[in-house]
């Protein structure tokens, strides 16, 4: 632990020294791209996998690093308010009793890195940079206050566990692979029931336990054609949608009575 911290300090000193020595020294730059910026949900959609490519750009003035680069990729889907409820036994049956509200939390959240988070940075940096599901900020309403709680809080861990079971929250510390020392890639698996909306991808580059630079990109998941049409009309023209569905039911019933008429 102490060794790692001194390493981090050394890295900072080294970077500072380099900056002072060469004047406006350029740090590394990240160039990234996802394989598909627009995922369309069609009738036969059953999940998809995107690929994120990127490279670490350096030039002659970039300070040399002692260690290798580390990468943490955070993919967060559209945010929503959610309620986690806990069942308790009351009068012999299991009833929802206690609950917690999670405010504006990502509906999809994936954290990928090339090695375990605690090997990349110190616990302090892990917390500040929100590395890992245990460190991501999940705001809860606690009474009249808004705050995140400790990672082992019963509601928080149940929330993360349930989302993970559905493949909507995930953490993989060996998902990012370096093809060359500066070229990297990672897969972004999207389960079938992935929420529709805009997804933010944040890529953080670490070296010697400190954040060097970061880059952002986005992709969106959209319903197109018929799915889009049905979903928006259900939401925006509830009356008309209900009327059409009811008429459809009557038509189907009427058709059946003609097709199967017994005379």
């Amino acid at each position, binding site marked *: 632990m102490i060794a790692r911290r001194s390493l981090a300090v050394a890295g900072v000193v080294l970077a500072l020294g380099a900056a002072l020595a060469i004047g406006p020294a350029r740090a590394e730059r990240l160039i990234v791209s996802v394989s598909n910026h627009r995922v369309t*949900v*069609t*009738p*036969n*959609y*059953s999940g998809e996998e995107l690929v994120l490519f990127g490279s670490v750009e350096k030039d002659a003035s970039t300070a040399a690093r002692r260690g290798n680069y580390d990468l943490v990729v955070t993919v967060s889907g559209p*945010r*929503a*308010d*959610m*309620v*986690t*409820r*806990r*069942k308790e036994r009351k009068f*012999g*049956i*299991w*009833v*929802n009793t206690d*609950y917690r509200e999670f*405010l*504006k939390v990502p*509906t999809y959240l994936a954290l990928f890195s090339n090695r375990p988070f605690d090997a990349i940075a110190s616990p302090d940096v892990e917390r500040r940079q929100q590395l890992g599901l245990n460190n991501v900020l999940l705001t809860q309403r606690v009474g009249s206050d808004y705050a995140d709680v400790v990672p082992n809080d019963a*509601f928080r861990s*149940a*929330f993360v566990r*349930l*989302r993970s079971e559905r493949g909507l929250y995930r953490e993989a510390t060996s998902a990012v692979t370096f093809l060359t020392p500066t070229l990297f890639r990672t897969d972004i698996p999207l389960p*079938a*029931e992935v*929420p529709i*909306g805009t997804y933010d991808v944040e890529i953080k580059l670490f070296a010697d336990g400190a954040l060097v630079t970061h880059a952002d990109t986005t992709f969106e998941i959209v*319903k197109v054609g*018929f*799915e*889009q049409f*049905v*979903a928006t009309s*259900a*939401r925006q023209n*509830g*009356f008309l*949608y*209900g*009327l*059409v*569905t*009811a008429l*459809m*039911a*009557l038509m*189907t*019933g*009427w*058709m*059946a*009575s003609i097709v*199967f*008429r017994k005379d």
Partner: protein
Amino acid sequence: MQLYLPIADIPVNVFLILAMGAAVGFVSGMFGIGGGFLMTPLLIFIGIAPAVAVASVASHIAASSFSGAISYWRRRAIDPALAMVLLSGGSIGTALGVWTFTLLRSLGQLDLMIALSYVVLLTAVGSLMFWEGLRAILRARRGMSVPMRRSGSHGWIHGLPLKMRFKRSKIYLSVIPIIVVGLVIGFIGAVMGIGGGFILIPIMIYLLRVPTATVIGTSMVLTLVTMVFATMLHAITNHLVDAVLALILMIGGVTGAQFGARAGQKIRGEHLRLLLGLLILAVGIRFAVELVIRPDDLFTIRETGGAG
């Protein structure tokens, strides 16, 4: 073949849904009921959100009861006056039911209420029907004639005011109990996602003393109208009706119902009641067990909005 459902937001196997529709349709055609009490739990079981299941099954029942109602109408087995009076209560009950549904959903107790009402209603109706069917069979075995149920015994219901003559059914009855029955069925249907035929038919036969000739057809009209109404209200207030899911269910359902109806004509009445009683009881007990044993997971998550 996988198909993505636009409102339920999950991909499902079309053939599985078609088969479920056909199986439930077979049962509903055989017993002359809507089959919602079987369909809703099945949909929940394959992973569709309970609220979406309840809302979508409403339109499925509308389809199957409409095809049933048409054939009963051709046979003049529907009492229009009786249906109208039932409906006046039924529409109020449905509106109250959808309102309660929305309220319970916001309180987070919808799933519990659906499960509890299933347990109470299904075990009660199921055991009564089973017992009644069993007694009828035993009586027939001993060679005794089945006693006439409508032997002029007038209960308190027949002493109520505001009497009206229902020509097709040949009964003279107060409108008050009929409206109340319609209201209760409409309410239960909207909250639980069932047509309520399996409760309505016994009530009409044993309580209101409506002759069996017009019971099923007339109850189908009530089911049809309350379910169309429920589809509309669920679509307007909760935006949860999945038309694609409903269409697949309907196609399976109406087809299965035709074969079920033919099979039902080959079975004797009391055996039919015994079977239906057992089926209803089994579904009720399944729900009861689920409530009593410790769930696999004590926690549940639900989105409350604010997406984007």
